[in-house]
């Protein structure tokens, strides 16, 4: 468990990343806030296409532009706003202070270069005064640390001679070879089978504990989150709908979407009514044409008629560290005020027509 007083190393505020497409503007990330402390493991969960990966690519400023653009917000990393520094300075942050592990280890290593070349390159990119031999021995050490057998010899192999799990280990070794403070793992286990998954996750956890590296773990596997993370952010349609420590989110899921997600994980000890697995109704929303206000209301079984579709839900603190964005926890006063406002807005719109 992390210490509450430990340093905040990443503080994201109001981050918005939009993509301009022919069909319209896609609000992939639409105003999200979260913080990562030193040594913390933060999980980001959500359905496919809810903006988990884009969030982290925006933090790294790796969004292809055009079509994508981070239009607003700030990303404070160790006191500097990553969105404001130059590209050259950003390059120095990437790989050096923040590293990333990608979803598919099969394609995330350059097939043309030996493992040694790629690892040495990464180290020497950031530490210019390290000699090649030094970098090589450091790479071998890293490979040993991530559990590659015969690292001294295997380092001279090409990526295609490694299995998927080994490649993912190599990726992790590369990501950590510069002692990064923050490791972003973008679905690191999706492409691997279950036993390897466990090994890789264990490895990430080990790194997290031993090297005090903060980890952002992007996944849609709630089981992984339960085992690994200190805090969890649940994203839906580019927004964070619930944010809480892991225990709390599993014990008291506040947002109907979180509740649905947790219930839809098959469990051995519990079965739903008639032995059926719970599933959230409907399809994930079309990101170009999101439902108004709370994007989840068409699928929500607790939606409040006439309110959720007309007024943006406010964020409530259920606890000192449990945040939820839903009308279910609003007071009557708030609700009526919001409804009034919505009426006024509609009236003015009609008047202008």
């Amino acid at each position, binding site marked *: 468990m992390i210490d509450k007083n430990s340093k905040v190393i990443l503080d994201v505020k109001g981050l918005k990343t939009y993509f301009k497409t022919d069909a319209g503007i896609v609000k992939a990330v639409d105003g999200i806030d979260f913080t990562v402390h030193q040594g913390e493991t933060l999980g980001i969960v959500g359905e496919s296409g809810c903006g988990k990966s884009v969030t982290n690519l925006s933090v790294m400023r790796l969004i292809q532009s055009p079509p994508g653009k981070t239009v607003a917000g700030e990303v404070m990393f160790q006191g500097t706003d990553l969105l404001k520094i130059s590209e050259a300075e950003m*390059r120095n942050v990437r790989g050096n202070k923040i590293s990333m592990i990608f979803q598919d280890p099969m*394609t995330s290593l*350059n*097939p043309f270069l030996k493992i040694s070349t790629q690892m040495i390159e990464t180290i020497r*990119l950031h530490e210019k005064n390290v000699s*090649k*031999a030094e970098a090589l021995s450091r790479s071998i050490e890293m490979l040993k640390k991530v559990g590659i057998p015969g690292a001294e*010899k295997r380092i*001279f192999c090409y990526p295609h001679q490694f299995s998927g799990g080994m490649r993912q280990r190599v990726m992790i070794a590369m990501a950590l070879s510069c002692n990064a403070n923050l490791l972003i793992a973008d679905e690191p286990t999706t492409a691997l089978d279950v036993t390897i998954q466990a090994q890789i996750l264990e490895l990430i956890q080990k790194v997290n504990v031993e090297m005090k590296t903060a980890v952002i773990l992007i996944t849609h596997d709630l089981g992984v989150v339960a085992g690994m993370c200190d805090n969890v952010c649940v994203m839906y349609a580019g927004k964070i709908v619930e944010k809480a420590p892991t225990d709390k989110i599993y014990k008291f899921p506040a947002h109907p979407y979180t509740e649905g997600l947790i219930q839809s994980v098959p469990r051995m000890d519990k079965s739903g009514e008639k032995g059926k697995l719970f599933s959230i109704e409907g399809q994930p929303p079309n990101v170009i044409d999101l439902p108004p206000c709370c994007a989840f209301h068409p699928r929500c079984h607790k939606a409040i008629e006439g309110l959720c579709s007309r007024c943006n839900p406010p964020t409530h603190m259920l606890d000192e560290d449990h945040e939820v964005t839903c009308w279910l926890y609003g007071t009557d006063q708030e609700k009526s005020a919001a409804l009034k406002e919505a009426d006024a807005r509609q009236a003015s719109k009609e008047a202008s027509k």
Partner: protein
Amino acid sequence: MKFTDRFKKQIHDREEMHKLNKAGRNGAKNEFNQTVQGNSLSKDAWRRLRKNKAAVVGMCVVILYAIISLCAGILPIYSYEEIIIDHQYLPPSLTKTAGELMLKRQLSEMYATSWRQGRLSVTEEEDAMLNNWITLDDTNKVWNWCYEEGEKQRAAGTYVFSASEQKKYDRLQDSIKNDIQVTINSVRWVNPENGKSYKLDNLDYDTLVSIYAKALGGIDEQKVRTSLETGVNSQIQTEVKTKNSESELTAEDIQSLVAMEKDSLGEDGVQAKEKSLAVDNINVLIQNAMTKQIKQEIKAGTNKEFPYKDTETLFDDINFKVEASLKNSRRYILGTDNLGRDLLSRIIYGGRISILIGIVGTITSLFIGIIMGSLAGYFGGRVDYYIMRFVDVLYGLPYMLLVIICMAIFGTNILNLFFALAMVSWLTIARMVRGQIMSLKNQEYIEAARSMGAGGWRIIFRHLVPNSLSVIIVYSTLRVPEFIMQESFLSFLGLGVQAPLASWGSLIGDSTQGMTKYPWRLVYPAIVMTLFLFSMNFFGDGLRDAFDPQSKNML
């Protein structure tokens, strides 16, 4: 840290690296204790290439060509630019020397004339046949037939040379036995004051004049100067005349034109011309003197072994190498051309230039094409738009026309040829590389490289270009023959390399005059060139299949 310490550390590091490298190469062991051998994409491709017989043969032929071209200087062949007028149009022969061929030609000519004069006895049928051949323009057949018939009759004693014929025959026999060819090489002037030697071209005008005066037998230097001046004058005059051969010029016009030309050359230009004239004249003087000397020696009865090589000194302080050989004992395996130059060595030297143009052109166009294509592909957007529109515009122009215009404007020399060909041939490569890089740049490992902090240039040249290298290699091997073809085409038109340099294209182009009479001049260069183009194409195709394991036409 002290410099020496740093140096030691570097050496140590390198050794360490080497050790680790070696350990890695000696076969890594996997979890199951099996040896894992590193096998890169290129190794795999090589394995596949070896299975493809046509490609291997092609590769061998290409390598052979390369070796021959590289070693052209040390091969035992005659000079490719040495003109021996007596030897013009000698047919290819493995067994006969130039003298024998000349004799045969002389004899057939004599027999043919005597047939026309009626001294060679032929039947009516044979007469009709010969006349028929002449109307068909088959002179070679006539000559051959006359030669055989004449020899037969001469041996039988029914035919006797006339006096003038006998004289001609004897003179030829004599020259075949005794004519020598003297070649002068690396002429250097030794400064008597300090003993240093200089190339004649590098000397200043005054020294050159004094040397020339000495060589002419110690005449007045002023006379030499005036003679050089008039020499250059007449040179310019002939130039002017050939330039304006269509318009009729009076002597005065010519005078004024010469003056204008001289003005445009400037004093230095005129002097440079005078210098080169003096150098040429000195060379001729030396050659004549040496020829005379050696002939005298032969007449005096000194036995000289031919070919004869020596270093000599003439006119006190001019050193040079002399090479003398019996001119008519040469053998021309592939015959000679219209100036009596050895076709074999011309083909070899021509191949050198053709292959060089193919390779240099490909490298230049690759260089430009890769840079432009990768910039367009990687940065995309506006950069891509402008580069590709520029490429499109160039594509729209007829490129051969561009090259021809380029050559016409900047003059026809080899460098301009390279430049002109490279300028218009990078377009396809740029497009291809762009396409490759566009498809590769969205690969995850590129994103991974970016997330490790690599910059644009690093990603392009370390990750993207090597990954598209297989396509580039294949394309460039197919590109080389294309360049050779283009160069041949230009040379054929007379815009390529200029004599005395040769290329396959210029050899073929020159040979079109008198194609039926002297077919070997066309056939051999054509065969050599075709063989090379074939092998290069087979090799390229083989490479393509080897680098693309999914390709359908696997062998």
